[in-house]
């Protein structure tokens, strides 16, 4: 019974969620709106779950003093201080929270992302080799697109756009259709109770 009730709920809600796209009756649409509200509330709870998981994982590493545990202390302290500062003094423009966000978090995160450029430079020199026909094709396309994105030549820009729109567009479409079919299959397996791993245990 403990397993059957959740399965029935998933079946009914899943089927309703799919059919409500196609049935425009006011009763169905009202119920659908109600379900969307529930969905937003449940999503908000996921945030709490994320915080609990963050504190648990970092806390465990800290108490066990695993190598690099100092970083876990910094993570927890940063989280707690930003939460405290935000709750006490607010998060609007001009507050301490906003100062810390704009002058510490923004440059730090932007720096982390920008560091990728250095690794790309290193990888391009060491790993990007024309070892096979496929690799040579990939390398040639990458060089053309990289140059075409920055140099102002008609012919180069034309080839770049063609690579992005035709071969790249075709490959991306194949991936999107594959992912879409996979999602439909997974959703059907869950709705029909074939896939039960979300219940835990099995």
């Amino acid at each position, binding site marked *: 019974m403990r397993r059957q009730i959740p399965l029935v709920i998933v079946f009914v809600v899943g089927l309703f969620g799919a059919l409500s796209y196609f049935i425009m009756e006011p009763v169905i649409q009202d119920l659908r709106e109600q379900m969307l509200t529930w969905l937003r509330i449940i999503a908000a709870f996921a945030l709490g779950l994320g915080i609990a998981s963050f504190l648990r994982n970092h806390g465990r590493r800290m108490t066990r003093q695993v190598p690099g545990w100092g970083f876990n202390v910094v993570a927890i302290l940063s989280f707690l201080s930003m939460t405290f500062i935000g709750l006490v003094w607010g998060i609007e423009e001009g507050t301490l929270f906003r100062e810390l*966000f704009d002058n510490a978090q923004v440059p730090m*995160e932007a720096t982390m992302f920008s560091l990728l450029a*250095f690794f790309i430079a290193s990888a391009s020199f060491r790993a990007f080799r024309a070892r096979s026909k496929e690799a040579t094709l990939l390398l040639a396309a990458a060089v053309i697109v990289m140059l075409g994105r920055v140099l102002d030549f008609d012919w180069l820009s034309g080839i770049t756009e063609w690579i992005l729109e035709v071969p790249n567009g075709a490959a991306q479409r194949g991936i999107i259709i594959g992912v879409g079919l996979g999602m439909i299959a997974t959703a059907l397996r869950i709705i029909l109770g074939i896939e039960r791993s979300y219940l835990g245990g099995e």
Partner: protein
Amino acid sequence: MAQKNIFARFLEMDRRWLFLALAVVVIVALLLPPAIGVRVTSPVTRFFDVIDTSDPDKPLLLAVDTPPSGLPELEPMIVGILSHCFDRGQPVILISLQMEGVSIAERLVAQVQDEFNRRAVEAGVERRIRMGEDWALLGYRAGFSAVILGLGDEVRKVYTTDLYGTQLDEIPLFADYHNYDDTAAVVDISWSSTPELWVQFAGGPYGVPILVGCTAVSAPQYYAYLQTGQMSGLLGGLKGAAEYEKLISHPGLATRGMVAQTGAHLLVVLLILLGNVAFFLDRMSRKRRK
């Protein structure tokens, strides 16, 4: 053990030399005047046209779905879009599906507003940009697809107040605004996969035009949507932002940054070529020795 030839040693050089080369190229490029010509491509022209030909009385829904990591590429897009809309008197409603996006949106809209109003004062123009009339910031809501679908029914069911606690019914901008039917277009400035959600849950069911601004690394995956018309325009990375700045005649951070990006791309291409030449020469040299 055989001694390594010059090519093998070249390939194994300390990677810190490569880091240094890139740093020097970027720093020197940033010191140079921004004299790089930017060619405007079709995805950006389409993006610009959708906004420029839309009804200026209908607000644009701008979703700032990026953490600070994406800002070097995405900030110029947000600034450009806000400037474009304010110049043509089109209101903008800002939301975020990503929590950190709210602070970013608030800072940038205030910055563009101040800049616009300062220029208006200097030019002796009476019109000013005002919160509640020209823009509204609704803030963050959890739930990605549920939020997008909810906005298609009624904005007041997702957001009862703006970020500052004012009821939407008390904000002039929302007097006739309810859902996507009242929206000129949705613009998603994103560094994750949220543009696909906007296509699936707003563009598809409600028919609102979807415009996307994303990092250069994400741009190729959206060309398929662009070709089918599910996305009406695309700004890809700093280059896309620079093209948009050119179209709105408002050169800014992206135009400036393109010099550094050009230098970095040229260096990476040079490194790929050098790496391959050294690799093949090393292989030939080893074969000959055998």
